[in-house]
């Protein structure tokens, strides 16, 4: 009886403290965090540098940067590629597990990312003055970093090549660089492809294979993805565009009916070879298999929303219209 009363009283006391209005433990980090970042005074001068510039990211959040960030952490491979492309490679101090281009990023410390879990402690320990998140990162992660006093810029994914140029310009502005030359050259390369594709009347059916672990139900790119966009722009017809999903799983029947004349292996980086496709049961009747028009491609050029999409476009154009693109 006494024990029950004791337990009940203890619980009541705990419950009362638990139900107390949330005092602001989340505001405490601010003074400590600004002290930490104040020791990292940005040293370099760069063309677009302004003190105390405010930016609005793609989640509507406002962030302020005092000068050019010198300790940037990237949370996605596409962001890393964009950072290095705009010339901010020296300002990057940390990257996620999957960033692998350009070669030098592999030497940078990894802050996690596989299994969807990021090592927040590692990110904070790097003392970043800017963390760039991508759509692949959750809002919860952004909030958690924000609460810890880290400046986070959320960079949404572009859906067209023009939007991608816009993202390059945004990151250039954030980091204090000028990308007008890069954007012009990218636009020129795309225009060159467009020019050669336009007079052609043939738009071969293309099947882009993302994954065929189950050869009777492979995955491909559907409408709304860059894969679909680039295939069309490179002068082909994407078999996957008949679906309404972004990453549809087509049945072998649908592929046989569509009868693509070219198969592009996006899963070649996982070891799938054109020879293995020739041996698949039920694929023999497909035009591409009969004429052995099966080509591997680096899927990172198609799936990562960064400047290498133009490389992907050119690679696809070479595959689809080899006579026009030497």
């Amino acid at each position: 009886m006494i024990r029950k009363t004791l337990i009940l009283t203890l619980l009541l006391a705990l419950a009362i403290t638990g139900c107390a209005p949330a005092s602001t433990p989340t505001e405490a980090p601010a003074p400590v965090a600004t002290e930490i970042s104040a020791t990292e005074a940005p040293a370099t001068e760069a063309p677009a540098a302004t003190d105390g510039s405010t930016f609005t990211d793609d989640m509507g959040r406002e962030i302020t940067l005092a000068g050019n960030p010198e300790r940037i952490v990237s949370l996605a491979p596409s962001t890393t590629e964009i950072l290095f492309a705009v010339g901010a490679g020296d300002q990057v101090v940390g990257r996620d597990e999957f960033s692998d281009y350009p070669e030098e990023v592999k030497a940078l410390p990894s802050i996690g990312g596989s299994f969807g879990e990021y090592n927040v402690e590692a990110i904070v320990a790097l003392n970043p003055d800017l963390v760039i998140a991508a759509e692949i990162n959750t809002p919860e992660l952004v909030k958690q970093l924000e609460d810890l006093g880290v400046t986070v810029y959320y960079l949404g994914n572009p859906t067209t090549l023009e939007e991608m140029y816009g993202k390059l310009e945004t990151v250039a502005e954030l980091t204090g660089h000028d990308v007008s030359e890069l954007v012009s050259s990218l636009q020129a390369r795309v225009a060159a492809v467009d020019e050669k594709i336009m007079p052609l009347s043939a738009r071969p059916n293309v099947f882009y294979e993302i994954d065929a672990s189950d050869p009777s139900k492979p995955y491909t790119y559907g409408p709304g993805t860059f894969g679909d966009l680039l295939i069309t722009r490179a002068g082909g017809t994407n078999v996957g565009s008949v679906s309404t999903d972004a990453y549809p799983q087509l049945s072998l029947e649908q592929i046989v009916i569509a009868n693509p004349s070219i198969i592009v292996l996006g899963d070649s980086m996982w070891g799938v070879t054109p020879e293995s496709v020739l041996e698949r049961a039920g694929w023999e009747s497909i035009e591409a298999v009969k004429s052995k028009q099966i080509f591997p491609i680096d899927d990172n050029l198609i799936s990562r929303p960064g400047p290498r999409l133009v490389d992907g476009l050119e690679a696809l154009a070479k595959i689809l219209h080899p006579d026009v693109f030497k």
Partner: protein
Amino acid sequence: MKPKPYLSSFFLLLIAFILSLAIGSVFISPVELWKILRGLGNETFTFIIWQIRLPRTVLVALTGAALSGSGAAYQGLFRNPLADPFLIGVASGAGLGAVIAMSIQWPYSFWGLMAIPMSAFIAALITVFIVYFLARVGQTIPTTNLILAGVAFSSFATSLTSFLMLRSTSEVRRALGWLLGGASQAGWTAILAILPYIIIGLGILLINGHRFNLLQFGDDQAQQLGLNVTRTKTILLIAASLATAAAVAFSGIIGFIGLVVPHILRLWFGGDYRRLIPLSIIGGASALLFSDVVARIVLAPQEIPVGIITSLVGAPFFLWVLRTAKNQGYW
């Protein structure tokens, strides 16, 4: 030597707590921890401890305590060694609620970010209510009916969840991460949000130890011994489910803790629920803390979802305990 269960349990919890605070991207020794506690520590370390590791440690401990306490309660309620806190659908309900919430683009605000844990919590409770009313026969709630209704509804909710995950491919990674269980992205807000429910839920379970013992005799016998079986079962079910739903809301589905920890404690200290429930609560906190530490160091700097570790490590450990336990016929 007479085993002192409470002493050893608290001691183990203390060790687990210290380990969880010490281990991370940088090892902070207990000496350093003591300095930080008194406010004399290194600035960066103090920040890491108070803002990152301490909230995570407390959340993990609370989650483990809730899962294990309600696991012991479910095992007592259902008199079934396979019972765990997810038996009557809390996990699948929470998963469904979370995935439904994830397919909506919430605004980036306090409530927008609370939407997913709140949906998970509410969906878990709704599931329990539905299963409860499905299983009810007149004035009684036969245990078998509860289990069957729970299993059936769980399958239903799980397949709906899978379907939704396949439909919104952009959110699959996020949904999977949540379903595998991970206590990292939360902080003090999460702790304050779930604390009242866990305290109420576990509190009710704690003071009903002897009623659990009575229930072990079977519904009829317990009724004849003076227990209002239906009312007791209802209250205990709600309490256990409340604690589980709160634990799952922010941490996702972490299996094995609720199943294995009460069993191990039962093998070591016997099946008296007046002792088993509090010991499960403490033991569950320790177990999950240890698992979380392992999840952080095994593939550093990469963190594995803690749900994977609990299953991987929990199963062999449990089998070892089962083989070496003296009281074999305990159940």
